[in-house]
């Protein structure tokens, strides 16, 4: 091989590199455009159509208020209204919220102002994390102990009923302190009878007969897992509905691990209200009224029958309900207010899920004509001053929101009537829906970034990245002259490719993510440094310039692969472990390492070949 043909790439290699860079520029392009303040309208429920007629209506409302808008767009089942000025955006959002009513979710949004052809290609700018765009991040934990407790309590009642109907003498049934259900007996013979009965009728309970006068029953693993999973899913659904109430453009509500839920609300400024709405957890319980005992006597003497509990209704009147829970709120799929078709009086229509329906049918069929109460349980926190210090205490408020007579065997769909007004019906429906939560949740992590702080973070990050690029460029050119210039071009190409990859993957860019990009810049030139130092060495060893270039790239390659792969291992570990912003760092670092191998090795090789390849060089200034 002659040294003249040493450093030449075939045309297709240039073409390939050109295509990759073209891809990079196209995908990075949307990031060059700013964002328009916008208002986004979507349906609060599935059947609400977002169509041209709504578009006309909104346009009419806006022009009636003299609010100029840039553009109205109908896409993906939502209506996006762009404004030029954030003031107009806020005003328009208030007006639309008021006029459109509760059927629509009106949310503030920032819409990329990229030109239509980019949007048509479905290209979007990088997805900014909450630390860059402002907003709230909540990590919520579902109280799984409470979930299991609830299940066990319903079994306690079930067992009591079973034993009674089989006439087995027991001295007590209750939840054991260490978990599980403990049934105590007067003698072993009775216990053995119970063992048989319960084994037959409640076969999913594990029995522990180690002590002669008692029987311990525990839920089996699959059932606990199922209940926990259900509790989590139920909470996610409820949170989703509540977030809709808040009007957030691109909320994220997702499961994390087995008992946690992440809620991210970009752009939310009023965090107190967000927490109020998200944090007010509630559950519902349907219980039969205790009609054998007198509530008045129970309330005044404070002697409450063992199988019952004394509650208060919304007006503070005492109500005596049985302890046994017929149905919990997690079985409710929907509750809507309306008018009873026969009487025309206000009513609430309740829909249950399959399991709940079955359970409710069994529970109500023998109780037609009896009264049933709905207990609304709210988990609240209170700030109190104790000895000069503010103390928060969690407490529950239990309230009977409705007592009605069971007219028929109740199943999948039933209605609650006898309500005084349509307002009462609406309130009850709202409470039933809000109470359709499996178990209490608690906020265990919160990160809020104000919108201006987010903007400042972007500005600082962007400036730091730019200056780092300039400083490194000066450093490389100072040391390697033209070759330094080539390294700088490769570095700039690397940044374009990182931005393109982030935009394409829609990976979240965070402030540590920007730090990752800056760090990658420093590390990306390492490949060039390795190559150039090698070229210098080869020159010193008396090689011709072309041979030195060839050997430099060739021999440095293994080292570059080794050193980059080890860094990648660390970055991947970071990704696996990291949460939120840290994950953003791992993402940009990993992407940066991969793209830098391409730009610093293949890209700069192409430029070197283009400028130096095939020429007769006497000296090489590197």
């Amino acid at each position: 091989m002659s040294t003249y043909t040493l450093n030449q790439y075939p045309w297709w290699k240039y073409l390939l590199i050109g295509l990759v860079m073209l891809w990079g520029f196209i995908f990075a392009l949307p990031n060059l455009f700013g964002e328009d303040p916008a208002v986004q309208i979507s349906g609060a429920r599935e059947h609400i159509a977002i169509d041209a007629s709504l578009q006309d209506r909104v346009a009419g409302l806006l022009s009636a208020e003299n609010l100029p808008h840039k553009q109205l767009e109908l896409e993906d089942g939502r209506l996006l209204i762009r404004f030029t000025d954030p003031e107009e955006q806020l005003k328009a959002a208030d007006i639309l919220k008021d006029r459109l009513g509760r059927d629509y979710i009106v949310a503030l949004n920032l819409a990329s102002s990229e030109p239509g052809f980019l949007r048509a290609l479905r290209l979007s700018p990088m997805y900014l994390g909450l630390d860059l765009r402002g907003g709230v991040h909540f990590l919520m934990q579902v109280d799984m102990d409470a979930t299991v407790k609830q299940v066990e309590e319903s079994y306690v009642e079930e067992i009591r009923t079973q034993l009674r109907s089989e006439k087995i003498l027991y001295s007590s049934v209750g939840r054991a302190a260490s978990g599980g259900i403990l049934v105590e007996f007067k003698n072993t013979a009775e216990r053995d009878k119970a063992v048989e009965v319960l084994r037959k009728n409640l076969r999913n309970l594990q029995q522990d007969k180690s002590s002669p006068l008692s029987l311990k029953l525990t839920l089996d693993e699959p059932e606990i897992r199922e209940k926990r999973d259900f509790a989590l899913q139920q909470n996610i659904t409820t949170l989703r509905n509540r977030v809709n109430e808040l009007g957030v453009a691109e909320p994220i509500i997702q499961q994390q691990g087995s008992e946690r839920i992440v809620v991210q609300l970009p752009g939310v400024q009023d965090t107190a209200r967000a927490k109020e709405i998200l944090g007010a957890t509630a559950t519902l319980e349907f219980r039969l009224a205790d009609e054998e005992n007198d509530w008045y006597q129970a309330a005044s003497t404070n002697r409450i029958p063992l199988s019952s509990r004394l509650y208060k209704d919304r007006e503070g009147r005492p109500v005596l309900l049985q302890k046994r829970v017929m149905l919990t709120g997690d079985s409710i799929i929907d509750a809507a207010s309306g008018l009873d078709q026969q009487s025309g009086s206000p009513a609430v229509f309740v829909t249950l899920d399959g399991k709940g329906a079955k359970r409710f049918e069994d529970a109500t069929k023998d109780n037609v004509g009896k009264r049933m109460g709905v207990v609304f349980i709210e988990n609240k926190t209170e700030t109190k001053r104790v000895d000069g210090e503010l103390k928060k205490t969690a407490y529950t408020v239990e309230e009977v929101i409705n007592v009605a007579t069971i007219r028929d065997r109740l199943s999948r769909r039933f209605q609650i009537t006898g309500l005084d007004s349509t307002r009462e019906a609406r309130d009850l429906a709202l409470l039933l829906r809000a109470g359709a939560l499996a178990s209490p949740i608690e906020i265990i992590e919160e990160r809020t970034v104000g919108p201006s702080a987010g903007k400042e973070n972007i500005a600082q990050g962007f400036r730091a990245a730019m200056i780092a690029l300039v400083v490194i460029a000066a450093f490389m050119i100072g040391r390697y002259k033209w070759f330094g210039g080539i390294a700088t071009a490769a570095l700039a190409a690397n940044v374009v490719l990182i931005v393109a990859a982030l935009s394409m993957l829609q990976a979240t860019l965070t402030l540590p993510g920007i730090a990752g990009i800056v760090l990658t810049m420093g590390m990306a030139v390492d490949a060039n440094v390795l190559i150039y130092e090698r070229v210098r060495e080869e020159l010193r060893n008396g090689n011709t310039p072309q041979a030195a270039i060839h050997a430099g790239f060739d021999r440095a390659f293994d080292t570059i692969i080794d050193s980059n792969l080890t860094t990648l291992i660390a970055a991947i570990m970071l990704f696996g472990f990291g949460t939120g912003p840290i994950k953003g760092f791992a993402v940009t670092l990993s992407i940066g390492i991969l793209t830098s191998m391409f730009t610093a090795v293949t890209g700069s090789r192409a430029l070197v070949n283009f400028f130096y390849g095939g020429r007769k060089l006497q000296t090489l200034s590197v």
Partner: protein
Amino acid sequence: MWRFDFYNTNIDFLRWGKLAIGWSILVLLIAIASLVFQGMNLGLDFTGGTVIEVQYPEPVDIPKVRNTLRQAGFGDAQTQHFGTSRDVLIRIPPRDEANAATLSNDVLHALQGAEGGAGVTMARAEFVGPQVGAELVEQGALAALGALIGILIYVMFRFEWRLAVGTIAATVHDVIFTVGWFSLFHIEFDLTVLAAVLAVIGYSVNDTVVVLDRIRENFRKRRKGSILEIMNRSINETLSRTIMTSLATLLSVIVLYFLGGAVMRGFSVAMIVGILVGTYSSIYIASASALYLGISREDLLPRAKETADERP
């Protein structure tokens, strides 16, 4: 045009090998002692609690803010300026039984209600429950351990076990040094710093691997010379690269330190310390450790099949 060159350096690095290792052990003992006796100034991410960053329209005195907070029942809050004299950072330690979800709003309202506080805005608020913090400590340690094991396996596979052990020794050295620095100078150690420490692991190995690559190459190429000479020679040959890359990375992190905002400061400090110590350790610790572990020429000679590919 400036230039610095290290072509013809012939520094007998490994002559100081024993001294370097002794010195490193001493420094590490100090770092570990500091970690044991002084502990870490762990940030909110790990301890749990609440941090609120607020911005005043005008510069504000810390004692005034402190007083307002004390009156509002936040006597346990720590208050300091953050960045500028208009920005105030308030830390509130974790409270028992407290669902601290509304704590940040209470603090903001208290500040806004006080004299001169009408224009106070919240820049950032973070609340981390104690259970989350404990998990993050555990996961962080696991990630660091995982990265080290992954790299150990890779280097063993690519090189030889003594060099792998040397690499890991150098990397562990860098991690303990960096973490020890944060302990000794009581700099807050939060999640971003942890990320930086993991990046230091990557960087340190990256730096070391280049030296090792050259050692291996020279072992195969040169038939003459003792192990010590070849190692020294390799370190000298890669010296200008080591310094150039360290400087380039250092420059980018220094830019980040000054321009990346207060949030990135801890991250930048960890990276700066890590890069400096990583450069030192890849020169001294990695090769010296392999040397004292008794590495020999045969350990690095190519297997029969590869010999044919060797260049003269």
